[in-house]
């Protein structure tokens, strides 16, 4: 082939590939943070080519010093003040004293750019699954994390402290000799690539009961899990304090707890389990009841420790605590029980069961759902486990947005 023809083909291919990016599909430029978009300048400075450097002391010393000081202040605020502020209400909530809304005023921040999902491979081994990083804007997979070891598959994932750090639970494949759950911590880079994958020293007996049976606290100190023994129907709900490696576990005789979530300081744990006593068809969809327990309670039978959140009848499909632990966001079966009814998401006071956040009707049909609340507490990701209707929900405004995840890549569990 002569070079001229190669050039022609090259230009043609580049043009066609470039045109796939349309003006409507690109994001607008975000406003730069931290200083005015266009600082006013003197007439002399406006003449291009004029010296623009500031004094040495300002540019080389004062500005960096101010930046470091500001960073330190932000770090102190995030690590010391914010957790106290966010955690302030949980005891009051369990005692039923403070209004639920008061402790969620700190909600804020943008929606996370990525979410991590458990993606079933469906190749021979029914438990084969990867962790994939999805773009929250486009729904595309930007990276995936390989299985953590021979014969181990990822089963569940939860965000650990931020939208960038995660904890994942892995279990053995079908027919494996060991019946154990391993935990891994990893982060994702600004471009969504998984980095710093490390196995945690703590593990748990049994295998996780569900792809939603893992939670972590926003302060990054605690993870909660639900596992099931391989030889019996008994389950176990446990929490691990990552700094001290202290494990507290409660036993559950028969049911499989799922949809776990922790308050920001890890003091309260919510689970969905058993039958919610709703209509038969709601039970058939896997609806249960929402339960709350304190993570500093003594180990033992779970039934003696937790208490039911008095939600409206209909059965709970998924639930997640607000950062303060005072509000439980729950997806319940909506309206008259028929297979075409939709789920409904609302926020309820964990003590009284009173609705404190308005209801939002969710699309995507019926069936098991997952609910992941971002560490900021402002955004939720709703993912029907049997369809491709992943939805991003602004919990403050109620605004919904579909995330176009293609059907084979639909996550079975997700975190952000």
């Amino acid at each position, binding site marked *: 082939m002569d070079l001229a023809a190669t050039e022609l083909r090259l230009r043609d291919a580049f043009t066609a590939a470039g045109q796939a*990016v349309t*003006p409507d599909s*690109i994001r607008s430029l975000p406003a730069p943070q931290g200083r005015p978009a266009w600082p006013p300048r003197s007439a002399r400075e406006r003449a291009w080519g004029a010296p623009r450097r500031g004094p040495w002391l300002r540019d080389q010393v004062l500005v960096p010093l101010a930046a470091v000081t500001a960073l330190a202040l932000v770090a102190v605020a995030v690590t010391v003040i914010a957790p106290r502020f966010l955690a302030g209400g949980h005891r009051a909530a369990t005692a039923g004293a403070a209004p639920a809304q008061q402790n969620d005023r700190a909600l804020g921040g943008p929606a996370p750019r990525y979410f991590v999902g458990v993606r079933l491979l469906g190749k021979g081994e029914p438990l084969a699954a990867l962790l994939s990083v999805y773009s929250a804007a486009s729904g595309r997979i930007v990276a995936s994390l390989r299985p953590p070891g021979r014969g181990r598959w990822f089963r569940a994932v939860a965000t650990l402290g931020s939208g960038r750090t995660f904890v994942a639970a892995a279990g053995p494949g079908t027919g494996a000799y060991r019946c154990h759950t391993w935990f891994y911590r990893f982060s994702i880079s600004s471009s969504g690539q998984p980095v710093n994958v490390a196995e945690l020293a703590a593990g748990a007996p049994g295998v996780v009961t569900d792809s939603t049976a893992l939670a972590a606290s926003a302060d990054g100190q605690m993870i909660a899990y639900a596992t099931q023994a391989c030889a019996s129907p008994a389950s176990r709900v446990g929490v691990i304090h990552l700094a001290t490696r202290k494990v507290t576990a409660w036993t559950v005789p028969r049911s499989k707890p799922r949809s776990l979530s922790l308050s920001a300081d890890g003091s309260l744990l919510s689970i969905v389990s058993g039958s919610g006593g709703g209509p038969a068809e709601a039970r058939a969809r896997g609806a249960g009841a929402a339960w709350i327990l304190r993570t500093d309670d003594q180990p033992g039978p779970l039934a003696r420790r937790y208490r039911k959140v008095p939600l409206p009848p209909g059965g709970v499909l998924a639930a997640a605590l607000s950062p303060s632990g005072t509000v439980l966001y729950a997806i319940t079966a909506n309206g008259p029980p028929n297979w075409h009814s939709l789920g409904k998401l609302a926020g309820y006071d964990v003590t009284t069961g009173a609705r404190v956040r308005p209801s939002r009707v969710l699309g995507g049909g019926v069936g098991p759902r997952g609910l992941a609340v971002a560490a900021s507490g402002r955004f939720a990701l709703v993912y029907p486990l049997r369809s491709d209707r992943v939805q991003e929900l602004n919990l403050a405004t109620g605004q919904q947005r579909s995330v176009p995840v293609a059907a084979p890549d639909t996550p079975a569990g997700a975190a952000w």
Partner: protein
Amino acid sequence: MVTEHRERVRDAGPAAALAQPEPGSGDLVGALYQCHALRLIRMAVLLVGDQPSAEDVVQDAFLGLHRGLRRLDDPANAVAYLRASVLNGCRSVLRSRKRARSSRLVTHDPPVWSAESAAMAGEDRREVLRAVARLPRRQREVLVLRYFLNLSDREIAADLGVSRGAVASTASRGRAALARDLGGQP
């Protein structure tokens, strides 16, 4: 009117964006973004293979321009600066993917081009794009700058920080490799 302005500025070249900021917009970087972002994103897509990464790279380049605009000696160099930033950003993306692959953590490789693009492109074009993706990084960059952005050798040399001779020889080697690679195609 805004569309006309964009077209006019795009046709007139980089300096026009600086000389004629979009009516109603006092933000020079914003005007540059409106005029050049699409082209730069398309270029980045050809280098990194997917639109979200390409958009990230281009936005980072514009934010870098915003931060460093005061140090820019000549405003006409703003677009060249952006191109160089985008090239650097694309290299970083490709390096991080390579690292992730080599540490065997990532199994998912973003496609060489987006699915929509592939659908539009057809098999012949896809084959060309695949062949380009197999070229060494420098050859790929030179070919994209020359045959997609239609830059001169002098401009490419300035963007890449190499001599014009090096650009010419790299482009020549890239074309020859492509011709060999595509030679068996009808």
